[in-house]
């Protein structure tokens, strides 16, 4: 069964080989004269102020949480999407469809709630 996946390993070997060879060849061949100025993170020519390990806008976290919610939804939808045609043949289509519509409606409500609460407004 799993031999069907084996050609992916051939591609993986090619891709990793290509990436690592590129990485190390340029580390070997490139010139190397580091000084303090070069090692400074770029900030438009000024000396870097403070660290870049700073606190982040909560929006990014919110987007990530929302993504998890809808990503899990889409995982459930994948199962239904593949079998929609078969379900019709088995006479189960209306029942399952009703369940799917209810499921999407619940998540639609969640989206509407977040929207109403301003969770999708980026400039606040």
């Amino acid at each position: 069964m799993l031999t069907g996946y084996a050609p992916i390993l051939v591609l993986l070997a090619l891709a990793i080989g290509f990436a690592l060879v590129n990485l190390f060849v340029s580390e070997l061949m490139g010139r190397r004269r580091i000084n303090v100025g070069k090692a400074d993170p770029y900030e438009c020519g000024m000396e870097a102020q403070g660290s870049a390990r700073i606190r982040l806008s909560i929006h990014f976290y919110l987007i990530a949480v929302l993504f998890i919610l809808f990503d899990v939804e889409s995982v459930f939808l994948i199962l239904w999407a593949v079998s929609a045609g078969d379900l019709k043949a088995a006479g189960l289509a209306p029942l399952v469809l009703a369940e799917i519509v209810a499921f999407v409606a619940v998540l639609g409500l969640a989206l509407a709630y977040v929207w109403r609460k301003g969770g999708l407004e980026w400039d606040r």
Partner: protein
Amino acid sequence: MIEWSVLLAWIVKATVIYLGLVNVGALMTLAERKFSAWMQYRIGPNRVGPFGLLQPLADGVKFIFKEELMPAGANKMLFRFAPVIAALPSMMTIAVIPFTTKDVVLGGWNIGTFSIVNLDIGVLYILALGGLSVYGLIIGGWASNSKYSLLGGLRASAQMISYELTLILTILAVVVMAGSLDLQQIALSQNKVTDWNIWYQPLAFLMFVVATFAETNRHPFDFAECEPELVAGFHTEYSSMKFALFFIGEYSAMTVMACLTTTLFLGGPSVPFLEDPHWALQIAAFLAKAGFFLFLFIWVRWTLPRFRFDQLMALGWKVFLPLALLNLLATGVVKSLV
């Protein structure tokens, strides 16, 4: 035990397709500069080789001999391997793209359909691996210890996960049409030009194409780089071949997305008005269609101005997500009841 001819067929197909992918990426860097030059009434690179065709090679050699810089305070391990993490997933997704639906026969040697592997979960494979490429960008952005890089990496991750939803939901509409996650089956179900999914799923097609632009961080959605605001975004601190690897990853992702659009909506290798085309003709048709979408990436880049980040997120969450859900449900209703 696997027969030697089968193993050889795997190696031949993987090598040919992989080299093709990398070379298309290299040529795209040239095409990008050529087309931008023509659109701005310039000539573009024309010194290295005929029509500047050897320019990517010259660039590659130059990249190798450039000095590599690593900012003080960077996380050395992550900084070094982030470009690899960014490039690998997009190069791996080419594996399931079906360039033909017929078996390729070379002088009596049947090497099967011209795709590296034919998975019955091809769509899931692409989504799973495609989702990983965001790690490369955010790790590279964070490890650099530079504020521009950090902001670029954050933006890239927020934008890619937002548009991944649109991408998944529009692909699912096609999956409902074909009743399979196998890209080979999806291509076969659109063998006739009248069966192409673009005619049945025009809305999904439009949203999918826009989402591919956001997913590959391309203009007009390239907020991860965004020169006027973030210098160069997540790869501000990268130089030499590490910088180039990010771009190899980006161009591979664009190529795979163009191939995926072709497979999902334009019948993949199907040739219009030919019931049973030769496999070489199928490959040619596939490459022509995918080539158009690659050109579209360049065309749009030099035509449209850049959006704002809040506009991008609003488009993704307030327009595309509800529309894609409704489109999927409508497709399901029609497929289940009619």
